[in-house]
């Protein structure tokens, strides 16, 4: 029983971690290259999920809606970047916090005005609704496996993009030393618009893939935004590799903590104490992880700035 539980929770944590990575990747690059705190990143995730849900409803096909939703969200991201965020790069962090907080309010209300207060339903694509039997006889939802597959594919793709292409080289140069990159003739503004569009598309991908599991609703972006910030701070700001490691760590610690701590506590403490302590401690774990990482490595695990 414990073996199967452990395997199931491992897959769950991998799935959660990969989705966090999609969000954190864009956030860490925006932060690393332009030194910009973008609280509205979670709003792009929400907008992506809403666009996905309504396009999927209109076309009747999950897989046809997915690229459309990604492109549409990327366009929203570019519009946001050109119209507003571009004016904020030279300002201090606190101004960026206030401005992007205002964007959250506006985005939330905009979504509420367009789609209403009810949360939207997004169905898993046909053929991926049931469970599959894994080697070893374990039943696992096929859609969750698909999420893992998509997450791994995107992670590999991003890795190749960042480490093997000219564009990726420019991104890394911008993240490690922006002034030097500008001095060497990199058009950092155009580069950043491209990075921002990619980040928005990745947000939409995470929103679209998680849509069938979680509710598509107003405010879905804010809580996951905090987790994404935890991930990039653990990983080191500006580092894609750090974002991946951080995301998988947070996914693992959070999922395993929630699944296993209550069981462990039930064996160690009287039931009343255990039922109080278990859920609280498992929620705290990722923050303890972050505090510990920052205490011993104040720049995160893989600092991008040398």
């Amino acid at each position, binding site marked *: 029983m414990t073996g199967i539980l452990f395997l199931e929770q491992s897959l769950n944590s991998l799935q959660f971690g990969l989705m966090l990575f999609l969000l954190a990747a864009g956030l860490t690059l925006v932060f690393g290259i332009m030194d910009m705190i973008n609280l509205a990143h979670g709003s792009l995730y929400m907008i992506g999920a809403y666009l996905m849900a309504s396009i999927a409803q209109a076309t009747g096909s999950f897989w046809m809606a997915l690229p459309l939703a990604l492109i549409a969200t990327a366009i929203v991201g570019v519009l946001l970047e050109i119209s507003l965020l571009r004016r904020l790069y030279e300002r201090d962090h606190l101004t960026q*916090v*206030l401005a992007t907080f205002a964007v959250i309010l506006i985005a939330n209300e905009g979504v509420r005005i367009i789609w209403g207060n009810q949360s939207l339903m997004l169905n898993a694509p046909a053929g991926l609704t049931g469970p599959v039997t894994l080697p070893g006889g374990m039943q696992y939802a096929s859609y969750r496996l698909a999420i893992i597959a998509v997450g791994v594919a995107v992670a590999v793709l991003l890795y190749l993009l960042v480490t093997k292409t000219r564009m990726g080289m420019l991104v890394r140069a911008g993240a490690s030393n922006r002034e030097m990159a500008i001095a060497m003739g990199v058009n950092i503004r155009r580069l950043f618009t491209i990075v921002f569009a990619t980040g928005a598309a990745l947000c939409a991908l995470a929103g679209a893939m998680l849509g069938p599991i979680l509710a598509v609703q107003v405010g879905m972006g804010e809580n996951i935004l905090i987790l994404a*910030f935890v991930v990039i701070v653990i990983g080191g700001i500006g580092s894609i590799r750090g974002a991946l490691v951080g995301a998988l760590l947070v996914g693992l610690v959070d999922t395993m903590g929630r699944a296993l701590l209550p069981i462990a506590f039930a064996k160690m403490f009287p039931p009343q104490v255990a039922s109080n302590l278990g859920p609280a401690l498992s929620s705290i774990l990722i923050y303890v992880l972050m505090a510990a990482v920052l205490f011993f490595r*104040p720049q995160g695990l893989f600092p991008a700035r040398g």
Partner: protein
Amino acid sequence: MNKVLTTGIILGVAIVFPLVMHVLDQAFYISFATRILIYAMAAASLNLVLGYGGMVSFGHAAFFGAGAYIVGILAFEGVTSLWVSWPAAIAVAALAALAIGAISLRTRGVYFIMITLAFAQMMYYVFVSMKAYGGDDGLSLPSRSTGLGISLSNDFAWYYLVLALLMIILYLLHRLLASRFGRVIEAIRENETRATAVGYPVFRYKLLCFVISGAIAGLAGALIANQTSYVGPALLHWVQSGTLMIMVILGGVGRFWGGPVGAVVLLALEELFSGSPLLGPYSLHWQLPVGIILLAVVMFAPQGIAGAFAKKPQ
């Protein structure tokens, strides 16, 4: 404008406000104004670390909420005297600030923002897990604190008590910032390396500043618990820390009136667009105009509202 005159006008308006509302038969706004005063105190305490100390704490709700919970828990256990519960709230918030600050102040920049958030979230879940004191549902206080010989359930008495406390705190902050300590704190914000080189124990100054700020937030928390006669985990949630931060940035970071002005403007805007009949059926969408106004402040008043009215740039 003359500083004394400005302060006099603000104080005068604050003193007359409940009387006017009483005449207009709008008792609701007396209670609403009390809430604003309490948030003004909390925002002023955050501005001390954020604006003057240059430490961007994203976990201020921890001290605010801890102060509120101490009053709530003591009242639940039968201790309602404000001579016991309020100092206890301040002491616990100060101790929490001492512990959190001692660890967090080793990091800087964005990492400081995130580590203070981490500790505040830990505190949030600790209070959520205390099932004996309401857990997720929070705790209702049987009544407001006692000990002054007058009933604080009277909205007038309560308003003037909170106003008096806010004025005392602001006066003390004013004195603190004008003192040697205040100058050193600002010097550290401007250039930490130089302050160290001159020989100031930078870490101890920053930690003391963080603790004072936490203690004031604890007092504000004790007041908010009395204001609503209820304490819940939402008081410690990161959204609360974010709201306090937005108030300070909106009002003016490092401006003396920044915190209070931000609290007044943000809460008044929320009330104007959500509670008043101004927008009619569209008042459900109050966040939209508030968001647009915040954006306008960012674009047109880069120093915050208090900064826009000040003569000298900072």
